[in-house]
C-alpha cells in the first residue's frame, strides 16, 4: 500500500499546501513510513529553486552558499532550499551541489516545483516545513509504506525526474520491469540514484516529454510499457496526469469542479479536505489515463 493525492486549481493559486496536508493525513494508514509533496508555486523566469537533503551538522549550508549563483540558501530540519541562477544543464547543477559537501542529496530542481519530503506523517512534514502555509496552483503527494527499498528521505516519494525541471511522480504499486526500463534509459544517458522502482517511472515519463510527446501520449505509452501493479500521478509545470494499470490492482479516484480537480487513492482523503463540497469521485478504470492542465 501507499497513499496518493493530487490537487489542481484550473485558473488560480490557493491554499494547496493546506489541502495536501489534510488529504495526506487522512491516508496516513496507507503509508506511515514517510510523506512528501511536489508543490508548484509561482514560476520564476530567472532562477531555479533547489531542494536537497543535508546533514545540517557538517556545514552543508555554508558549502552550498559558497557555490556560484546561489542566493537565499536556507535550511529547515534536514531540508536545504536555495534560489539559484543557472544557465547550464541541470544535471551539472545537481552534481555541483552534491559535490560541495559529503552529505548532500539533491531532491528537486524546478522553476516552480518544490519537493518536500521526510520520514513521518503529513503533520510532521507541516510542523517541520510549514507546508500548510504554501500557496500553489497544483501539487501531488504521497504517504509511503515501504515494500522494497529503504525507509529514508532519498527513497521517499515524490521522485524528481532528475534532471528534468519541474517533473515529479508519486506511485503506489510495484514496477516489475524496473531494471529493464532503467537500463534502457541509462543507455540514453540518464542516471538513477535509488534502488526504487518509482524513480524509473519519473524519468521514463520525463524522457518521453523531452522527446516531444504530449502528457497524454506518455501516459498511454506507460500503461503498455510498464509491467506490474501501479496507480501513479505525474506532475509537470502546467498539469497533472494519472494512470492505472490494466488489471486495476491499485485504487485511484478523481473528482472535478469548474474550479479544481482532486485525485486520491481513497475517498476518505477527498472528504477530509472537502467534507461539504458534494463531490462524487469516480474510480479510474483498468488501464485508464487522465490528465488536466492549468
Amino acid at each position, binding site marked *: 500500500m501507499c497513499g496518493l493525492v493530487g490537487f489542481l486549481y484550473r485558473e488560480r493559486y490557493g491554499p494547496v499546501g493546506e489541502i495536501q496536508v489534510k488529504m495526506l493525513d487522512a491516508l496516513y494508514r496507507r503509508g506511515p513510513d514517510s510523506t512528501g509533496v511536489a508543490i508548484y508555486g509561482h514560476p520564476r523566469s530567472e532562477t531555479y529553486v533547489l531542494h536537497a537533503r543535508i546533514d545540517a551538522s557538517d556545514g552543508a549550508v555554508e558549502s552550498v552558499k559558497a557555490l556560484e549563483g546561489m542566493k537565499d540558501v536556507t535550511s529547515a530540519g534536514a531540508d536545504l532550499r536555495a534560489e539559484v541562477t543557472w544557465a547550464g544543464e541541470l544535471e551539472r547543477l545537481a552534481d555541483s551541489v552534491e559535490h560541495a559537501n559529503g552529505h548532500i542529496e539533491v531532491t528537486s530542481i524546478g522553476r516552480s516545483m518544490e519537493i518536500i519530503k521526510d520520514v513521518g506523517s503529513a503533520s510532521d512534514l507541516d510542523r517541520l516545513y510549514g507546508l500548510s502555509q504554501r500557496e500553489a496552483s497544483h501539487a501531488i503527494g504521497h504517504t509511503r509504506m515501504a515494500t522494497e527499498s529503504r525507509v529514508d528521505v532519498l527513497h521517499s516519494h515524490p521522485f524528481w525526474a532528475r534532471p528534468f525541471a519541474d517533473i515529479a511522480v508519486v506511485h503506489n504499486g510495484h514496477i516489475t520491469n524496473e531494471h529493464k526500463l532503467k537500463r534502457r534509459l541509462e543507455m540514453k544517458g540518464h542516471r538513477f540514484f535509488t534502488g526504487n522502482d518509482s524513480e524509473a517511472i519519473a524519468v521514463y515519463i520525463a524522457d518521453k516529454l523531452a522527446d516531444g510527446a504530449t502528457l497524454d501520449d506518455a501516459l498511454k505509452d506507460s500503461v503498455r510499457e510498464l509491467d506490474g501493479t501501479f496507480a501513479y500521478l505525474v506532475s509537470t509545470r502546467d498539469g497533472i496526469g494519472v494512470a492505472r494499470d490494466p*488489471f*486495476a490492482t491499485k*485504487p485511484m479516484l478523481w473528482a472535478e469542479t469548474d474550479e479544481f480537480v482532486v485525485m486520491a487513492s*481513497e*475517498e*476518505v482523503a477527498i*472528504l477530509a479536505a472537502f467534507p461539504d463540497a458534494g463531490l462524487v469521485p469516480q*474510480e479510474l*478504470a*483498468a488501464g485508464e489515463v487522465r490528465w488536466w492542465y492549468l
Partner: protein
Amino acid sequence: MVPVEEATLVDCNGRSTREINELIRGAEGSVVVRNPLGRHCLGVAILKPLQVVFQGPVGWYCATMGDGLEAEIHGNCGWSVGQNLMSGSIVVRGHAGSSSGATIRGGTIRIDGNSGARTGISMKGGTLIVGGNVGYMSGFMMQTGTLVVCGDAADGIGDSMYEGRVFVGGSIASLGSDAVEAEVTEGDLAELAALNVEPSQSWTKLVAGRKLWNFSKKEFEVWKAAL
C-alpha cells in the same frame, strides 16, 4: 422500516472504528450512522436483523461479513462493500469501488451507480445488482448466484466463472475466458422484472461454458488463454 426518529444515533466524529461498530452491533431495530466521511470497516459483522442507515459516503469493507442486516448507504462506498454477505440486503445510493459483493453467499446488494473492477468476484450465491456500469473482470470466478448489470460491462466479464448467471443490460467490451452467451428465458425476464431492474439496452445472459471444469490436453489452448 423503523422510523428514523426511533433509531439509535451513532455519530462517527470523535469515535474509533471499534467504538462505532460496537455501538451499531449493540443496537436493536434501527441505527442511523452520522458523519461516516469515508471511513473504512463500518458496520462489519452484524449478525442479526438490524436496519443500518449510513448518512454519507463510507470507505472500504462497509457492511462486510453480515448476516441478516438491512443496510443503506447514502453516498459512495469504497472497495468490497458487503463482502461475504450471508443474508439480508445492502443498498448503495451512489457509486462503489472495486470488488463489490465479493464472495457473497446470500442476500441482495443493490448499487445505484457504477461499480469498479472485479465486481461480484467469487460470488457463492445471492444477488448483486448494479444500476450503472461495472469494471474490468466483473463476475470473475463466480460459483453460484446472480449478477445483474443494467449498464455496460468492461473487458473480461464472467471470466472463469464456474456457475451462476450474469445479466448485462448494456454493451459488453469483451467476454472473459469461458463465459458464454445463453438464451434469456421467460423465467429470467420474470425474475429480472421482480428485481425491478431495467436494462440500458437489452438483456444479455452469460453463463459458464464449463470448458475449464476439467483439464483436457486436447483443449490446451483454452487453458493457456485462461491462465
